């Protein structure tokens, strides 16, 4: 296909917007896996849970789905704290986190999915929001608000989390526990408590990511499985524990997928995107901005 500048610009812009969404979906895993070494394979299921939470508040009270997600942040935070506590007591404390901990999260993934099926049924769910259906046109570039609004809030979320990690005591403690747990303990900080807070934050981000997802596409309980590979790939590509790396990786992956999809066919998009991941890791094993 002929590469026209207009089409290229549109594809890049679409990829950037998509990348913003990918960043929101991945940030929770970046915290749990990248910083805490917890392979929370159930994270996409919590994102779907976030989607359904936004759906309930939107359908019942007419609340904007993103506003609904902000209201649900404390609930998801509490859920994340509870899950970590169980994980720590049963697996981490006994040194069983490697395989049995992974099995625990697999189980959590399926339990969450089946619970959603039992409560909500299997039909696709959508939300209504004032900005869904509106597209801004700037020359050859189209900016559907359905993608632009999640992108903008996702970037704000990344900035907010980075500031929290860099500038707050708890944030620096989270970074410290990911680097050297024993040293943190010697600084009279409780690593378990810090990890619990960090994991709770990672699950809280799923509430927002879920709201973004249900704005962008219809959701049914099993759809989270489509994202497992993507989120871990972006997390690794960006560099474990690096938020700027995560954003760069998500945007890059989004752009690569979008440009490939436009000019070479959508079937090639995942292959090229993951090929890009492999190439990056071959040249830079720590990821784009990993330590």
């Amino acid at each position: 296909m002929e590469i026209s500048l207009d089409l290229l610009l549109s594809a890049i812009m679409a990829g950037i917007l998509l990348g913003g969404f990918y960043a929101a979906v991945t940030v929770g895993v970046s915290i749990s896996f990248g910083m805490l070494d917890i392979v929370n394979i159930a994270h996409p299921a919590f994102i779907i849970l976030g989607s359904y939470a936004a759906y309930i508040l939107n359908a019942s009270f007419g609340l904007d789905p993103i506003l609904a997600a902000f209201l649900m942040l404390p609930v998801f935070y509490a859920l994340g704290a509870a899950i970590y506590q169980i994980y720590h007591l049963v697996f981490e404390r006994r040194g069983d986190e490697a395989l049995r901990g992974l099995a625990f999260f697999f189980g959590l993934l399926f339990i969450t999915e089946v619970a959603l099926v039992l409560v909500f049924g299997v039909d696709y769910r959508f939300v209504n929001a004032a900005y869904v259906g509106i597209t801004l046109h700037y020359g050859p570039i189209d900016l559907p608000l359905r993608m632009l609004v999640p992108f903008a809030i996702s970037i704000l979320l990344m900035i907010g989390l980075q500031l929290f990690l860099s500038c707050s005591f708890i944030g620096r403690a989270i970074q410290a526990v990911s680097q050297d747990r024993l040293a943190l303990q010697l600084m009279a900080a409780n690593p378990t408590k810090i990890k619990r807070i960090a994991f709770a934050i990672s699950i809280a981000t799923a509430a927002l990511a879920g709201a973004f997802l249900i704005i962008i596409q219809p959701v049914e309980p099993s759809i989270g499985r489509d994202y497992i590979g993507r989120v871990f790939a972006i997390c690794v590509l960006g560099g474990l524990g690096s938020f700027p790396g995560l954003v760069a990786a998500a945007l890059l992956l989004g752009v690569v997928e979008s440009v490939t999809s436009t000019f070479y066919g959508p079937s090639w998009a995942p292959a090229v995107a993951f090929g890009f991941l492999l190439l990056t890791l071959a040249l830079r094993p720590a990821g784009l901005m990993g330590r």
Partner: protein
Amino acid sequence: MWSKAHSTMRTSLLASLIAIATSLFAVAASAAEPIKIGFGMALTGGLAGNGKAALIAMQIWADEVNAKGGLLGRPVQLVYYDDQTNPATVPGIYTKLLDVDKVDLVMSGYGTNLQAPAMPIVMAHGMTFIGLFGLAVNDQFHYDRFFQMQPNGPNAKLSLAQGFFEAAMTAKPTPKTVAIVGADAEFPKVATEGARELAKKLGLKIVYDRSYPPATVDFAPVVRAIQAAGPDLVFLASYPPDSAGMIRAVNEVGLKATVFGGGLIGLQFASLKQQLGPLLNGIVYYDLYVPAPTLNFPGIAAFLAKYQPKAVAAGADALGFYLPPFAYAGMQILGGAVEATKSLDQKKIAEYIHHTTFKTVVGEIKFGPDGEWVEPRILFVQYRGITGHDLEQFKKVGTQVVVYPAQYKSGDLEAPFSEIKH
């Protein structure tokens, strides 16, 4: 001597009484033993919306039959397992149904992907197998005991696209180019193959011909690439989430085409109709039943009146226009064949079905040699005049206009798509 004779007689009498009692009990037990009908069904996963709806329809049939005394004087019992919309589960499910559960009859699950893997197992057991909506499932097997409820006709590959192209070619000016796009999955692959054949037959130039992975999130790049190719017609074959994604992208990008539509699965369901609302206007899609005056078959209204409240309670498709009537009709056919042949002999049942025209809630059905309908009845319908997101408007005549085939047509095609208000 008398006591010995008396004792022998008493023993014989007791043994006879026990034998009679045992045989009576056996007769009673076999009379009450249910006729088990087994199947896998998508109760979770991507196709579960339709799977659950089909199950409700089948349960309605079973309840009705049991209320009238069952089949062959025996109650029917549905034995089913969730195939999770995962083809890999299907062989195991049907092996269990036939070898462990010892079901008497089988039906298929919903969808091409979930029927094809069952074929080797049902063929090995010699079972009559009624398929619930699959495309060209029997084209390679040529199994003489397979029957398909989706009204594809003898050439299943072409039937999903035939009506779209026949309707689209009535647009003025006559279309010259076509874009073909579909998901990387069994049904869309077969449907787009048919579209390609028809496009070549009609002398249409194919200016875009690509597929996309089912897990695609953003369809805007796909639609922009299609737009850049400038086709008159756009034929899409998709599953529900991609149908919604493509329709949104088409409206956001502002696709300029004469006719847009094709084999979009999902547009038949209440949830997508309700959500997409006016975005559907102008789309020409395939359907199997809509509330049009030309499709008022005996029994359909009564079936839908029973189905719709149950579906709402179960969180399944609230309208039930797509798979449910055909799932119910499939059970009518299976049950009718059992009653007519007075047996559970699979060969007799299959032969009876082959030689019979059945009167069902979706009209008369006659099957051809490969189990497909002798006459295809894939309707092509254009959405018109949809305003807002109220579901009730879809129950009324006028919002879904049948533009193909001529036998059931209720209106002419409106074009171009790009000028219809969305």
